[in-house]
């Protein structure tokens, strides 16, 4: 096995580091995307046995968005194993307690029935804000594109586009503006 072959295999199975910004993203859509990168399904050399998954750094998990009133409708069940240990936590309460937990559970459940699930989860790094330790940030060499665009708040839109944005309705002459 010449050095060229050894090094070629080292590069083919190298683990790249991706970063994913969860602001205004549905956790379950992004979980499906993150899962493919964690398990290495996005690589043409994927095989369940050759463990070619990548690392993914999730930032702004506090800013995830759920449709409609799912914050109060989605419930997370947990049982301590002792009698009377069942507990039902609403999504927003769980998110308040630990902003990364909703995203973590979403990715965990998206790898349903995969035996290396707990091992693959080691390659997931969750951060509630966008402050990431520097040595992790240096590893990152690729950013995963989000499925949904980030909406812009009215007061955050810059003055210039506000000024010359076309109007499609004008007040009648005699209208008093309140």
């Amino acid at each position: 096995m010449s050095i060229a072959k050894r090094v070629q295999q080292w590069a083919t199975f190298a683990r790249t580091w991706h970063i994913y910004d969860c602001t205004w993203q549905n956790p379950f859509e992004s979980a499906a995307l993150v899962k493919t990168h964690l398990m290495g399904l996005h690589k043409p050399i994927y095989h369940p046995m050759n463990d070619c998954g990548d690392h993914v750094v999730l930032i702004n998990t506090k800013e995830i968005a759920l449709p409609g009133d799912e914050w109060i409708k989605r419930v997370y069940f947990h049982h301590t194993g002792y009698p009377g240990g069942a507990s039902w936590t609403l999504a927003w309460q769980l998110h308040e307690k630990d902003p990364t937990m909703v995203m973590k559970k979403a990715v965990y459940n998206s790898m349903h029935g995969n035996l290396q699930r707990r091992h693959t989860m080691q390659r997931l790094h969750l951060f509630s804000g966008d402050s990431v330790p520097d040595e992790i940030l240096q590893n990152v060499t690729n950013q995963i594109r989000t499925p949904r665009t980030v909406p812009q708040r009215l007061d955050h839109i810059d003055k210039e586009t506000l000024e010359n944005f076309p109007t499609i309705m004008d007040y009648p002459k005699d209208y008093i503006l309140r």
Partner: protein
Amino acid sequence: MASLLKVATSTLRSTLWQTRSVATTTPQLIKEIQEKQENNVRTYEGVNIESERSEKLLKSACQTTFCPECTLGLDIKHTDVLILSQYVRSDGCMLPRRITGLCYRQQKKMGTLVTMAQKAGLMPNLGPSWSKKDPKQRYGWKKFNKYFLESTIKY
């Protein structure tokens, strides 16, 4: 014969339209008193102010019956805040249909879109004075981001 009939109905409708625009209540006309001084004659005159929107008006918007979706074919989402903010008063209330000039279906749709945007916290500055300007300060589950699917609007 058919074209003659069509011309007759259109003229009838346009005349009817003018009369409808006469407001029943007395309009509180907003005028601006301007003072002009010409060689020792000073005249005061009340002039209607020109609303600043008019010069940015789309030509197609000046027709009488205008709906963003029917005439321009715009598929408006609740995140298109710049469009929605034109149909909303400064305190966040939706303008009535006689002012917006939309058809019934569009008016109701625009209403739901505006409520969606406000619930999602995308228009905090167009709200009642007592409202929280920063959606993150809202109480309980309301402070977290949420979005809406336009497919849930049923009409």
